[in-house]
């Protein structure tokens, strides 16, 4: 019994990276829709707005979160998101995707419950496939 992911979300300020992932998702037909936020603040605003008008179709099943971003970085987004995620009424799997190889970052990410896993850029097409596939099992 598998279902294709309906909505995935990327929070990342690197346009090139976002475009490439978009292409891969399209080429591999990994999900129906992909939403993109340039920083944590934009994404948080979106989720907070959903709270007032819950509609499961507009809630992503997977989030790919970058750490180094302007305005609001990944850590701050995580803090705020953790507070509201249970009110969204849907399981959201969150991956951190960062180019930081700093062990401090990796440890910190793994200590946060909301974070499913920490992926170090560059991600591979196989990584993305595996993540989307696991979700469908």
């Amino acid at each position, binding site marked *: 019994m598998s279902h294709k992911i309906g909505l995935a979300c990327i929070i990342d300020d690197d346009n090139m990276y976002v475009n*490439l992932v978009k292409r891969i998702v399209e080429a591999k037909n990994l999900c129906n829709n992909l939403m993109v936020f340039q920083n944590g603040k934009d994404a948080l605003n979106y989720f907070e707005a959903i709270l007032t008008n819950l509609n499961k179709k507009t809630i992503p099943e997977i989030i790919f979160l970058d750490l180094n971003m*302007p*305005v609001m970085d990944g850590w701050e987004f995580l803090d705020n998101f953790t507070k509201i995620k249970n009110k969204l009424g849907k399981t959201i799997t969150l991956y951190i995707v960062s180019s930081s190889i700093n062990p401090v970052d990796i440890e910190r990410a793994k200590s946060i419950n909301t974070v499913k896993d920490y992926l170090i*850029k560059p991600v591979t097409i196989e990584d993305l496939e595996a993540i989307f596939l696991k979700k469908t099992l």
Partner: protein
Amino acid sequence: MLQNELFNNVIQDFNAGYWELYDGPEREVWSEKFYDSLGYTKNELEPKIDYFLEHLIHQEDVELFRDNFFSYRRNAINFKQHIKILDKKGNYKLFRCATNDELPVNIKSKISLVFFIEIKLEPEQDITKDNFYYKETAQMTATGSWYVDFQERKSFWDFETRRILEYADDYIPSLKDSANYYAEDSRQQAADLFFNCAMVGTPFNTEIKMVTANKREFWVRAIGKPVYNENKEIIGIRGVFQDIDEIKKKELSLQKSIDIIASQNSRLFNFAHIVSHNLRSHTSNLSLLVQLIEDIDDPKEKIGLVKEIKQISYSLNTTIEHLNEIVAIHTNKDQEKKPVKFQDAFNLVASGIGQMISMSKTKIKTDFKELNTINYIPAYLESILLNLITNAIKYKHENRDPVIKIKSYSKGSKAYLKVTDNGRGIDMKLFKDKIFGMYKTFHYNKDAVGIGLFLTKNQVESLDGKITVESEVDKGTTFIIEF
């Protein structure tokens, strides 16, 4: 002879010769030790008082001893005196001569005794020897001794203390002005040490800066400990000063080098992080792109993707240029500093971005009256002004035209530059730690790059300065640079 064994033992330990006095007829028995101490054997001498007075005792002592001896014999008047007796080698040896009662130990005996306790001259000779060694040690280690006498209210210095403090040999140290022997910034330390030692008896062993008679400051190791009287009261402080100026200066310069190395190391570490992070984001994209190209079968699409490489290459170049700028700061910092007029640097910058200033209707008010010139690398001052001004214009408030106030001033021995704007401000609660980070931007501006303040901070710090920021959202931002 002597009946009492205990007494015998005491005498043995006493290491003294003695005479036992007997009556009827009057005679004296000279003990073995008495002969020994003078180097004679028993048959060489006649153990009689007359013989003693005539042959053995030094002339100077004859009269007194005869009086004492006979008073004791006849009237049991105890006595105590110094006496010189001729030994076998022909030298006079000094003895302390005393009767039972005059001895410091409590000796009980029924027989009257006269003791001859040799006063050894060796200890005195040792002292002169020690004195020689002390002087040598003092000179070779540049260690002077001193004593502060609280009862006499005087301080005493030895020759070496006078020498290292560059005072004449007959100089009498002053207790009242003793603070003047210490460098100004060490006086409190000295006062604390001496006070604690004098009041509570805390000994000290420390490094402190002193001043010589010639007003030369130098480092000494000062060691001191309290001196007590029999009633356990502190009556003075005794100690040494060792000249450690050379060692201490080396240590300080070493410490300075270590500090510089540590700060350079931490900057390098930071830089390595920046390089790693910034380059990685591009190489990651490149790697992802290559995967995608390989994965796609349609040749047309492949060619379309190849074009993306151009974009990545451009970004990579920009990043490398930024990194070059940072490296340049650290290699340029050895450039010569020279007097720069704030006004000149400002004019240069203002004309460079004249269009930006007029387009944005920016008003800039400068005040360099208080401090018009600074010794700095001119290019850095220009770069700092440029970054702070363009920053203020870029992040102006949407409802008002930018007004920038620039003021130079000095406080204490330091020079400052203050740049205040009326822009939209930065939320200090959120971004306090990130303002000067690389590629950190706090606004949605398209042209926000996040390199300017990072470079400014690096430039300021590479010349040992500091930059701080105060800001309030919707009010404006103030940067203060301490040169």
